[in-house]
């Protein structure tokens, strides 16, 4: 059927039906392709010839209507449920009656483990590139948290293990527990909400996110981007203990600490009370000993100073005496007596020094001074 406009003078106008038909025809030129999304709003009713559902983009919530003939849908035996991730092979079409775009599904495949793994790797690479898993983002755990938040499923084991570990190691611990969904399509959103609620509690200084072991798909919510971001953005440090040692959900990479088991997580978040008390006792002993040592040192220093003070006058006299002896030595070296000691003599006439032979005449009385005394003599 051709799409013919109605002509009003120089304006061409299309009826709604004609417009829809035109767009629908144009859409048929688009190729058949695979689309990935989560099933929501699945409607399969006995009286209807077609099964309808929405495909939702888990990243940003974008939606696309899809439809498949019921016989074909049932033949696939997928037993699909809302929230499941699928690949749909189909082509876009316009539903003329409503003017709505939808995907005409030719085939549907459930998102398998292979696809999940590939998607996880992509998400991991993207978040890693963003720096969400960087070591520099990891915060130290508080030594003695005022309150501990515990986000866990209602499976008794993980919760009991964390609480037992905390209470046996540090009996005075205060724990606030948020039980939430940890499995299934709504788990990630529920855990994000529980995490926020726990952090809104006063005095919560650290949060433990724990879940016991489970199959690969059971642990998928712990790799959900929303939860990973919530863990990384948590205002207080987060310790994760999810699944078994070999499981490594992405929330473990974003956590500040990862524990291998719920018990290990419990032990990480509290100190050992016995050790703490013993350490305090040791600190007190060291405090007294250190003070004693400081006092002893001061008293020794005082005694030493006192000794120096006592000896100061004696030292002064000795120093003066030594200085005097030195001066006497120098004096002696300069005096004529030293010359006399070497065998010279001083000759005087009438008390005056005789310096020349002409100064005396034969018969004059002179005195001669030598090293050890003097004697009189007469000139010849």
């Amino acid at each position: 059927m051709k799409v013919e406009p109605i002509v009003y003078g120089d304006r061409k106008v299309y009826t709604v039906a004609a417009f829809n038909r035109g767009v629908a025809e144009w859409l048929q030129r688009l190729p058949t392709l695979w689309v990935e999304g989560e099933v929501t709003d699945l409607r399969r009713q006995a009286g209807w010839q077609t099964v309808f559902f929405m495909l939702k983009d888990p990243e940003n919530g974008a939606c696309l209507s899809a439809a498949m003939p019921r016989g074909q849908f049932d033949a696939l035996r997928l037993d699909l449920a809302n929230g499941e991730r699928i690949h749909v092979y189909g082509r876009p079409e316009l539903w003329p009656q409503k003017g709505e775009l939808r995907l005409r599904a030719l085939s549907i495949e459930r998102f398998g483990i292979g696809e999940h793994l590939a998607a996880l790797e992509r998400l991991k690479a993207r978040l890693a590139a963003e720096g969400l898993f960087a070591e520099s983002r990891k915060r130290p755990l508080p030594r003695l948290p005022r309150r501990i938040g515990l986000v866990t499923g209602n499976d008794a084991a993980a919760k009991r293990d964390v609480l037992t570990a905390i209470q046996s190691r540090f009996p005075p611990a205060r724990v606030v527990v948020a039980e939430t969904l940890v499995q299934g399509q709504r788990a990630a959103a529920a855990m994000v909400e529980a995490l926020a609620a726990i952090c809104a509690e006063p005095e919560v200084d650290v949060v433990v996110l724990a879940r016991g072991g489970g199959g690969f798909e059971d642990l998928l919510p712990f790799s959900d981007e929303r939860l990973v971001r919530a863990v990384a953005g948590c205002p207080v440090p987060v310790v994760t203990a999810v699944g078994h040692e070999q499981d490594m959900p992405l929330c473990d990479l974003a956590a500040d600490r990862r524990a291998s088991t719920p018990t290990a997580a419990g032990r990480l978040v509290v100190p050992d009370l016995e050790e703490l008390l013993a350490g305090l006792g040791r600190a007190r002993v060291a405090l007294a000993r250190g003070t004693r040592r400081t006092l002893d040192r001061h008293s020794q220093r005082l005694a030493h100073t006192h000794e120096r003070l006592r000896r100061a006058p004696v030292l002064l006299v000795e120093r003066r005496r030594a200085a005097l002896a030195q001066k006497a030595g120098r004096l002696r070296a300069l005096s004529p007596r030293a010359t006399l000691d070497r065998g010279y003599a001083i000759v005087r006439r009438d008390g005056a020094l005789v310096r020349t032979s002409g100064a005396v005449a034969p018969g004059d009385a002179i005195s001669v001074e030598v090293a050890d005394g003097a004697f009189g003599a007469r000139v010849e």
Partner: protein
Amino acid sequence: MTYEEAEKELTQIVEQLERGDAGLDEALKLWERGEELYRFCAAHLEAAEGRIEELSKRVDSARPDG
């Protein structure tokens, strides 16, 4: 003051006293302060009472679609 702050200060005081280089008055003041911190920490541990509270009930009931 938190327990951690008190514990850290106590450790610093012990280290300072163990070096023995504090002045006399200072040493006595440090010792008094250390004792005070010790008593604070010990009291903190003794006074704390273990408690487990359940938040989940409240969270769930607050959820219209929970």
